[in-house]
């Protein structure tokens, strides 16, 4: 399992990681800082009045946070422990595979997630691409 996750992450890194939203969200692009704030729970809205549903793609989590904030999963988990147990916010929803992430983002205007750049299709819109 660990080997598979590592291989998946490496493959995704080769294609880049696409941060995706719903095409009807009204968002065309989003800065790296904004993505960082959203996925680390510092801000909770995609736009004013639009609470964000933030989604982690489990197999890609290591590569995503390494690329976004240069931190490994143990540091990210410890970070979320700080926030969860002081009631600041809850961590992103964790989904097992990219297909399910695409489905969720495609049906929820408030959702934001990330997938392997090669898997993006017309049901979702790429708003930021992270390279390794």
């Amino acid at each position: 399992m660990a080997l598979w996750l590592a291989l998946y992450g490496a493959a995704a890194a080769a294609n880049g990681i696409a941060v995706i939203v719903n095409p009807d969200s009204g968002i065309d692009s989003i800065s790296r800082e904004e993505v960082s704030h959203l996925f680390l729970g510092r801000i909770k809205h995609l736009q004013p009045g639009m609470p964000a549903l933030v989604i982690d793609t489990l197999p890609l989590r290591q590569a995503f946070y390494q690329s976004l904030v240069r931190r490994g999963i143990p540091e990210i988990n410890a970070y979320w422990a700080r926030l969860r147990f002081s009631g600041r916010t809850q961590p992103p929803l964790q989904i097992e595979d990219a297909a399910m992430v695409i489905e969720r983002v495609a049906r929820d205007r408030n959702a934001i997630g990330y997938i392997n750049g090669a898997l993006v299709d017309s049901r979702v819109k790429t708003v930021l691409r992270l390279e390794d």
Partner: protein
Amino acid sequence: MKTRHSTTLCLLAILLSLSAAASADNGGQEPIWRLSGFGTFGAGYHGSDGLTYRRDLEQAGGHDGGRVGFRGDSRIGVQASASFDAGWSAQIQSVSRLDSEGKWTPQLSWTFLRYTPSDTLDMRIGRLGVDLYLDGDSRHVGYAFTAVRPAPEVLGVVTQDLFDGIDLTLRRPAGDGLLSLRLYGGRSRGDLSLYGRQYRPPEARRLGATLDWVSEGLTLRAAWGDTYTTRDTSLQPLATALASVPIPLAQARAAQFDTSHHLTFAGLGFLFERGPFSAQGMFSWSRFSQFPTYHGQGANVILGYRVGAFKPYVTYSRVSLDPSEETDLSLPAPLAGLQSAYAGAVDRLTMNQRSIGAGVRYDFAPNYAVKFQVDRINAAESILIIDSRGMPARDVGMTLYSIALDFVF
């Protein structure tokens, strides 16, 4: 105890009724409750027979000299949290650890209803905590900390870090980060163990403010807090006895023991994380206004470097808390007992302690970490290190070995 339980029940009743109101506001949609928790199973050993090392003043005990002890760092907490639409959420948290009575009675901690209408505004009501800790706003979530425990020299002397009240956080972008200002106020909660006795401060008002700037790899924090206590009669028997002594200075000293006082804290901190390297520092100033006025400073620095699942780190911390007023008083020999009681009272918070430590954190599985840490602690006076009667230790040097399993679920 009755007051504490009734406050808890009152808090829960308010929380549940407001949760119901929030749910009704949301078209009756049921909130999604999530259960989670955290814990530490920790052991410690030092060779100073007859002395107990405590990580904070709220615990009656800790690591006893000459044997492996599990009481000081072990704890467990459970939490239920719910999210509603329209920006409402709620949380109930309970923590069990060695308390000021030497028991493990679960205590209600972060329990509140929250309303977040936008990213710029956040409000909570219920049982809340002061945010002094750069690694998290609770001293109990070991998994969130790099080291085995938050620096006792700086944060272990902070008491009553919970309060029943409200807070308001305002947030806005600033540069490539986010600037937030948190204002809070309420009634302080918490007990402490001093001089071998449990001490429950009377009703006290807590006010505070925290200014944070958070960017991708840097967090800067300035914090201020004040606890104003009235009707603190703990030293009144001594004051009454001194007032009855026909010596002007004794009577003057008696008049100086006010029943109202402020405990004021100010702190500056930073947390820097870049790749595998992390550094954090905290500097604090404190003042206690009851006679004899105390002034203190504390500092803590932790440096860490992650290598795969391992994160070696070093720590340094120190605290000094000394009376800053004249306290001289010489009573006649027949009043030696009163003289001794007076000397103990004016010296009751004196503390000069420093520690240097090294350790390694091993994240061996998701949400599990083991830490091994060695601390060299030197204290000229310490209210954290106590003897078998609970009295403060003096001129102590000890090496503390700690191992802890931290987890969250």
